[in-house]
């Protein structure tokens, strides 16, 4: 039985011990959180093997991992792994776009010239293969393998698993790129018109439609952590969008030329972003402080980029695919890319699109002459969360998950930059409250002119009705009348104050006490009053005497009058 030990309680939240119970509660929270963290780490350490990350390693310094060819890997690996490396030669239907389902089990490819194919690639079973006979620019799986969306020449279409057209999304015109936000059931598209549109695939509603005002957009990526859509534009900017705000939350001048591709690192919760420019530069960004972590110059424009679950960066440039492992390592020249972890070359065909297969050491590359599945050791996460994405799920599990995920669907307006926003305190409300509440530090008094009439009267200390008219018909009155009125008001206030001034607090207190009650305090008060009177009298006399002495009118003996 595990219990939070006392030494875990490090942070004392309530310093002043004003509320013991709260202090206990917070300390319990701290200790619980800490214990939870420790326990889960222990748990992970126990269950998950961290000793071998699955990466390829060299035996001596002279060896280079990037020199290892796919054939050699296939040769030296087990049959199950070797079967994952395959190639589809589809030369006539042009460069292919690629997508994997979230569990990595299913693959969809779309040739530019309308060839669509979906597979259960593990078992090699074909779900559907259709020829659209029109341009297909992008293909995306929806929440699972039962539906997929294809961005075609004019509209976006949704097909079911068997390749049957289910929906035609007429709102999405000339779409070039698509992303699916699995937790929100949102299909985000952007196209030549430069409109970013969100379609809810569970309800069918068009949730949001935003104009980027930056022309045709060819590049799109989603942040798996906060579900923001990153768009790369022709002028080299990258903009971040959420469906609830009509303007980009962040705009980043990433490149000086058009942005050719964007990818976000799922291993770092989307804090690492890579952008490639048409001018051949590749920049790795930290999305928290928007600073360039690394910057490389390629000889050819990287067409596509992808991060693996374990943080390997794949770049497709020209007919090459390079996978980088260690981006931090400084090259001989700062702008020279580091030596890749692995490379592959497709002779004669340019790379068009690529994706790392989740939970597998596989990189799927769509290129001009088909699709190739490359084995990249150590690319995929070995341990899957079957509640999240289970590569081996059966029919029933799939159904259950679908229902569960629909029930757990997150409203689109929860997409914010601050992922922990929900349940926090509204700072604006707090501020407003502080402004109203005179006890709070942010209190700001409303200017006199902005106060209501009642408040103004209260501020003046005269809460009466007879002043009503002068504020009303001020403007019509001539100067003199107003002056007279003001004078009268001043006099009145003066008189009142004088009357008030007659009263000393002592007298008031005495008056308040009942006359017939004789208790020590009353007696004391009376005595005090007497003393005060005597003192004032003496003071007056003194003053008088002094005055007379000063003026010289005093008699000879008056100097002894001082007391």
């Amino acid at each position: 039985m595990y219990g939070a030990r006392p030494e875990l309680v490090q942070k004392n939240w309530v310093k002043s011990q004003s509320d013991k119970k709260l202090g206990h509660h917070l300390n319990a929270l701290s200790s619980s959180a800490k214990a939870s963290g420790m326990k889960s780490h222990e748990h992970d350490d126990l269950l998950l093997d961290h000793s071998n990350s699955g990466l390829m390693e060299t035996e001596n310094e002279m060896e280079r991992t990037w020199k290892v060819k796919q054939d050699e890997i296939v040769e030296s690996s087990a049959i199950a792994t070797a079967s994952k490396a395959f190639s589809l030669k589809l030369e006539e239907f042009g460069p292919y776009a690629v997508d994997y389902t979230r569990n990595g089990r299913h693959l969809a490819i779309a040739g530019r010239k309308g060839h669509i194919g979906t597979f259960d690639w593990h078992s090699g079973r074909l779900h559907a293969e259709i020829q659209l006979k029109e341009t297909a620019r992008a293909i995306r799986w929806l929440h699972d393998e039962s539906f997929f969306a294809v961005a075609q020449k004019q509209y976006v279409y949704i097909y079911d698993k068997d390749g049957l057209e289910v929906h035609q999304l007429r709102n999405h015109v000339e779409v070039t790129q698509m992303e699916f936000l699995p937790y929100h059931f949102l299909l985000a598209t952007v196209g030549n018109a430069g409109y970013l549109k969100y379609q809810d695939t569970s309800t069918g509603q068009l949730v949001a439609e935003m104009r980027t005002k930056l022309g045709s957009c060819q590049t799109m990526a989603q942040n798996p952590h906060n579900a923001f859509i990153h768009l790369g534009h022709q002028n080299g900017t990258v903009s971040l969008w959420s469906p609830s705000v009509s303007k980009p939350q962040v705009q980043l001048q990433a490149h000086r030329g058009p942005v050719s591709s964007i990818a976000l690192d799922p291993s770092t919760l989307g804090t690492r972003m890579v952008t490639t420019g048409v001018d051949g530069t590749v920049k790795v960004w930290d999305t928290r402080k928007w600073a360039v972590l690394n910057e490389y110059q390629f000889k050819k424009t990287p067409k596509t980029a992808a991060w693996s679950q374990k943080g390997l960066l794949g770049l497709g440039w020209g007919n090459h695919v390079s996978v980088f492992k260690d981006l931090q390592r400084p090259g001989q020249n700062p702008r020279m890319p580091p030596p890749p972890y692995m490379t592959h070359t497709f002779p004669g065909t340019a790379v068009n699109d690529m994706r790392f297969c989740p939970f597998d050491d596989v990189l799927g590359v769509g290129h001009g002459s088909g699709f190739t599945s490359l084995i990249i050791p150590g690319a995929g996460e070995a341990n899957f969360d079957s509640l999240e994405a289970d590569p081996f799920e059966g029919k029933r599990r799939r159904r259950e998950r679908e229902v569960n995920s629909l029930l757990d669907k997150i409203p689109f307006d929860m997409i914010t930059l601050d992922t922990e926003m929900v349940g926090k305190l509204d700072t604006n409300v707090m501020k407003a409250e502080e402004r109203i509440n005179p006890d709070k530090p942010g209190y700001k008094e409303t200017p006199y002119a902005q106060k209501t009439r009642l408040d103004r009267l209260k501020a003046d200390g005269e809460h009466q009705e007879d002043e009503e008219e002068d504020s009303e018909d001020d403007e019509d009155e001539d100067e003199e009348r107003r002056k007279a009125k003001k004078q009268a008001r001043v006099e009145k206030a003066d008189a009142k104050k004088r009357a008030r001034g007659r009263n000393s607090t002592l007298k008031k207190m005495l008056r308040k006490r009942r006359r017939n009650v004789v208790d020590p305090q009353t007696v004391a008060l009376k005595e005090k009053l007497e003393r005060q009177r005597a003192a004032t009298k003496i003071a007056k006399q003194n003053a008088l005497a002094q005055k007379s002495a000063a003026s010289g009118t005093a008699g000879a003996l008056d100097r002894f009058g001082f007391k």
Partner: protein
Amino acid sequence: MVRTGRQPRTQPQSTTTTKSSKPSKKSKPSTSSKKAASAALSAPSTGLDVYSYAPRKTKARGDVDPESRASFQSKGKGKRQQASEDEEEDDELMGFRGGGIVEFTGVKPKGLKMGMDSDEEFVGEGDEDEEIDSDEAEESEDDFKPKKGGKTKASSRSNAQPSAEIDLDEDEIDFDDEQGEGFIDASEMLDMGVYDSDDSEIDSGSDDGSDASDDEEMASASASDDDSEVDSEYEGALDKLGSFVEQLESRKRKNEGDDSPFGDDSGKKKKRVVLKERTEAYPEGEFVAVGAHDGEDDGKLNLDDLLSSFADSKNPRLAALRKTLKPLASSTTPSSSTSTSHLKSSGPLAAPLPGRLQDKIDREAAYEKTKEETDKWNETVRRMKGESGLGVEGARHERLTLPLMGGEGDVRRAPNAAEWSAKFQPTNALESSIQSLLHAGAMSSSDLRKAEATALASLDPADVAARQAELRQQRDLMYRAERKAKRVAKIKSKAFRRIHRKAKGKEGDSGLSLEDLEEMDRMDGGDRVGEEQNRMEIQRARERATLKHSSKGGRWSRTDIGGLEGLDDERNSAVREMVKRNEMLRKRIRGEQEGEESADEWAEGDSEDELGEEVGVEGIRRRAMDELKSLEDKEAAFAANQPKVKGVVGMKFMQDAIKRGDRKALLEATELQERLERMGEQAVKGLDEEESPLSLSEQVQGNSGRRVFGPSSGNKSIATPSSAEPASLPSTSTTNHTTKLNAPLSISTRSPLSTNATPTSTDESNPWLADAASASKLSRKSNKATVGKDSRDASRLADKVARHKSRQSDAREAEQDDATVDIDPSNVLASAKAKAQPQITAPSKEKKKGAAGPTTKATMEEDERSSDEDDEEQHEAQRGRGQLAFKQRELVARAFAGDNVVADFEAEKRREIERDAPREEDNTLPGWGSWGGKGAKKSKHAKKFITKIPGIAPSARQDATFTNVIISEKKDKKAQKYLLKDLPFPYTSAAQHEHKLRTPMGPEWSTSTILRDQTLPSVLIKPGVTIRPVDKKV
């Protein structure tokens, strides 16, 4: 006031003179008593005749025998009253009822009253007769005129009539003046112990009158005593007076019937009337306690009667009892002692408190009571919470497990082996057979114990003792090192604790001086100084509030203390404490520290040792050293005569282990010694610094082995290596070793220079280092450089180099070059100068290249690109494919020529900033509500239509520090609904609330055990177990 000194002088005579003068006086009043009375009555009519009248009266008074006189005097203020009583009693006895004078008396009291007044003053302040007399004279004249005519006035005068006797006193005063008779010192009166300070009785003549009437009614014992005396003394001279008094009496009775309103006097009189005449001192009956020895007792037994028996006893126990009973007694005495005071003491009844206040008081009382009751549970609760205060099971602080773990009878603890064996009962065949076997073989635990005892008993006691001694010795040997280490640790901890405590005691609670606190404040902007000062103020105020330091405090200090001898122990100690405290405070005001206190502290902290004569840190240190040394000595002695051991201890591995332990202990001891020594050195150093400010050495970083000499040692510049210390040379080389090229160089060139002792500090740039850096950076191009420029040129170039260096970040180039460069140490400087040139030409070239580029962009861009190009070129050149790459870049640059994306972005950002900035909008409709045209004034309501939009200042923006990022400040209105408007209940700040949010509870975020822990109910009840109520006396 003039005569204040006189009383003591006259006083001693008083008793003697009265005696001597007695016989002569005795005769006079007897002969002319009536005359004198009449003369006395007529005296005031002549105004200032008081003096002339006085002697006669004295004669009349002089008859009183000394004892009675003394007793009169001793009554103090009450004396006059007594006198009047005497007179009246006299009258009664004599049966005088004189008539004719009554009309006359209308004048007489005037003078009498004056006399009375003077008498009062006399008693109070000593003797003031002359002044008083003159006053009286005036007053009498004033008063006389109006009173002469009216009879009513005369009657009112008659109220004051009894003070005729006081007039006699007046005479007596005069007599005293002449003869020094009839007065006793106030202190003497005090000594007599019957001083009655009740002023109320002699307030006015009317009081006297009332007293007289009282006395008339009640025949008290004391009065009767006086009676007899007076009886014997007064013969015939007082007859007249007596009749006069009688007359007054009758008059008074009339007045009583009249009910004439005469202010207080009459009111009091009225009350008297109600009393009925009594024939007995107290009502007789079986329940009446007979103890009435004072006159006004009405037969009730009160506490004073009981207390009086031991009032004078010296028994301390009785004194204590007296003290405890004092409040009771005092409450009873005033009512019993005087007849009139009960009127004063019980004035108007105090009004009951307002209900609210009463309730509050009741509540407070109830709270106290309840608290008392509930506090009885504290111990139980504390025990249940356990040591940590968090609960029996630590983290389960908010959980209660029933039945309670600590509760008696509910404990489910498994018994230990001994308990098991003691209670063991065989339950099955196997167990019983085994037990029987054990019994048979005498192997049960009790049998074994017995066997051991018998074995021991059979041995020779001397043998046993020897064996035990041997065992002890072996044990000693084995744990010797351990013990020594423990001892050393103890010495160490003691010493350091003492020093620490000393430091703490010096500087109040926080242990820091105000300066230190100020320093800390400056660091983080706190207000420690203020707090500390406040604390000290409060402390001081508290100390002062006790008043124990000043003579104002305490009841005893108000009285005049001649010295400490006369006081009893309690007072004595209190006085001593006061003086001590006062002295302490004074010291503190002067800013001194009390050394004796610290000495005390030392003594109490270390009772086993003798009191340390030197109490400073030095003393502590020395003592610790001594202790250490003694320990060492003991060890050495032990080692010297260590006997040869045998057995297990003698084996090699044991010996080795012992040696190892010894080494360790020795190490610790030496370490402690070192530290103590260092401390001593520091102390010495401190002394040195104090004594000779010019001392030129300083320790470096508390290391006793390192000292720094020279002028720079005074200020805190660190680690100036000096020629005097060769040990510091390696350190300089270590600082330089990062540039491996320089290490030999610095040593070789330094040795001649070091005699100058140029003070260098680490933050100062080392010229050698700088040279090396620049040299290494430029060295590659130095081969090409032309040498032989004049020095001026060189310096100019060097300047430029520096500027360029600051502008350009060439660290990586330097790094690259480091590998390839080799340098001749002899011409470092020359090469540095010479190599500057090509470095400067490089950027100019770059600039040219940038200018030649196809686009005209922002300078930033240009710079970046130029540097990029530079790098690119180098890189390509290295790889040998530069030409191609260059062409490509050119192509790319050309492709995007005119794409002013950066400028556009900046403009966009500017727009965004402007859009979000706070601004004012003018919503005035021109011409609406005001006149337009030339000379038209601006409407005074123009302000009304300006709306202020509170935006975000450019500096407050999230992207204020970024150049290439625009972060929108637009609010996400749709997300507002997920935010809380109010802070949830138990939390007092947003941070606390967010802490709660960050601690999710659920199977997704934590392991099952943690989840179970988190979701465990606060009260756990074990099923199937009786839960008994908690007994608070568990």
